[in-house]
């Protein structure tokens, strides 16, 4: 219990730091929202008026205070460029991206774990070389390149899946899944490759442990030894790596969502950045960092579930 409390407290502190960094960085962004809103119609007079209206002339600390206060009280403000209230917008986009992250993680784990274990069992033999090489190729290609290839193959070539767009799962679950599939796959391939390598490395280490020898000495068959005794110990480390990859995924979605016109968090953040929509940048960057951190917290807590050693300390 105190372990959880401790983690939660530490999380709050990190969240606070995240908010401060986010705010600081977004405030040194060049260009400003007033300019963006007025476009080519900008002139100094109108800009000044608009800046005043938007509160861009207040001292930074005041703006930060207002921002953090708003975040805490649930008033996340509105996008300056798009005029949409931010909170529901982020919720919707996070759902979209969450779907991608979830899918790609599922795809990646479902492939990576068996492959990694298989490679570890046959360490330094052709099976290992084959699995490791496949994995290596996966991490070697930028995921947008995978995306391009997938579009060419599945959308243009075979016509099985839509090449772009996002459908709200609440509207049409089937369509939502079909639209999420290609971007997830593009994200998942690189991820799978990485997780395969990690699983292999972890399992290779575990299979050298004494308790594996003990299990064999008990006369358990090899599949029990590997898949029960071995894998049970790999779950924690692999999960941790998978958790860390959530951060990587949230970086990759910026490119992938833009490629697939999948309007999720990555797309939104990129749009916000392009448009210098400061409140939206702040909120989305903050939310992404917070979600990444939460994902890791969740993994840590789950680790405690799968590994009794953590549970007690």
């Amino acid at each position, binding site marked *: 219990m105190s372990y959880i409390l401790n983690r939660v407290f530490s999380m709050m*502190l*990190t969240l606070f*730091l*995240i908010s401060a*960094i986010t705010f600081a*960085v*977004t405030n*040194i*962004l*060049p260009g400003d929202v007033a300019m963006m809103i007025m476009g080519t119609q900008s002139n100094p007079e109108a800009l000044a008026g608009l800046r005043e209206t938007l509160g861009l002339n207040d001292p930074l600390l005041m703006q930060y205070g207002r921002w953090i206060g708003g975040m805490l009280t649930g008033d996340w403000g509105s996008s300056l460029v798009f005029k949409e209230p931010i909170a529901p917008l982020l919720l919707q986009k996070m759902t979209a991206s969450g779907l991608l992250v979830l899918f790609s993680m599922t795809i990646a784990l479902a492939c990576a774990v068996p492959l990694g274990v298989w490679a570890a069992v046959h360490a*330094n033999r052709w099976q290992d070389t084959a699995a490791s090489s496949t994995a*290596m*190729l996966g*991490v*070697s*290609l*930028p995921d*947008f*390149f995978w995306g*391009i290839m997938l*579009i*060419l193959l599945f959308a*243009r070539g075979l016509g099985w899946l839509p090449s772009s767009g996002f459908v709200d799962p609440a509207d049409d679950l089937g369509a939502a899944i079909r639209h999420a599939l290609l971007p997830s796959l593009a994200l998942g391939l690189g991820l799978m490759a990485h997780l395969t390598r990690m699983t292999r490395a972890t399992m290779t280490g575990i299979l050298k442990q004494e308790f594996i020898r003990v299990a064999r000495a008990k006369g358990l068959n090899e599949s029990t030894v590997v898949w029960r005794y071995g894998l049970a110990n790999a779950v924690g480390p692999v999960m941790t790596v998978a958790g860390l990859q959530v*951060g*990587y*995924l*949230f*970086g*990759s979605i*910026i*490119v992938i969502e*833009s*490629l697939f016109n999948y309007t999720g968090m990555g797309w939104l*953040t*990129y749009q916000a*950045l392009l448009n210098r929509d400061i409140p939206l*940048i702040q909120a989305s*960057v903050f939310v*992404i*960092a*917070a979600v*990444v*951190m939460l994902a*890791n917290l969740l993994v840590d807590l789950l680790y405690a579930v799968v590994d009794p050693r953590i549970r007690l300390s």
Partner: protein
Amino acid sequence: MKVPAAFRNTKGIVGAVVVLTVLAVAILAPLLIPADWATRMDMRARLSAPTWAHPLGTDQLGRDLMFRVLLGAQTSIFIASAAVLMSIVIGLPLGLISGYMGKTTDNVLMRLVDTLLSFPALLLALTISAVLGPNLQNTIIAIGIAFTPFLARIIRGEALRVAQMPYVEAARTAGNSDLRLITLHILPNIMPVVIVQATISLAFAILAEAGLSFLGLGTQPPDASWGLMIQASRDYLDRAPWTALVPGAAVALTVLGLNMFGDALRDALDPRTRGEA
């Protein structure tokens, strides 16, 4: 003469050959091929499929993809190396100090690093790039900074481990100052990890440069960089897939080589796996 351990397996050899080849291309291509060959346009041969005149085809402005990919190696490799170098220059002292000093210094630094780690590296690089504006130097800075927290984390962990080794304590009782301890006894012992990490970071940096260029924030046209080439190919994919495949293959090959070499290096340098692979 002993063969360095990293070259004693196929993976290491293949990786090293690929890395050296790419390096050779990056260094030699600009010397052997006139720079404007990468930007020379031929409006009559736009999006031309591979032909004798253009062995790897041309892009939307009729520029020869073979020359672009060869000359682009320099840009991609230079940005990636400089960015990794920068992250090491910042991350190494940071990690060393944090790991060696421990206590409050460590707590504060690592809290900061952990916070930065919550920001996806690409997002961080993208934001920094947006702050600084797009050009070669800023791309390097953006990727460099984005990679630093991760590197600092790893180095700190390694420094912490090494600082507790008996030989460091022995060196301490041998009258070494903190500075000498760090530079003579800790640093050399974490260098294998730094080198391995640098190799692998290099692979990631190439991908990151490609990603940034893909979003228009990396290398500036008409200079050729692999990421930029893939970005430019986006609108012509179904018509001229080679515009994506050619630079994509170059990225893949390089990153593959770096990863293989890095892996072999890790196996060779890590005392725990030494002599097993």
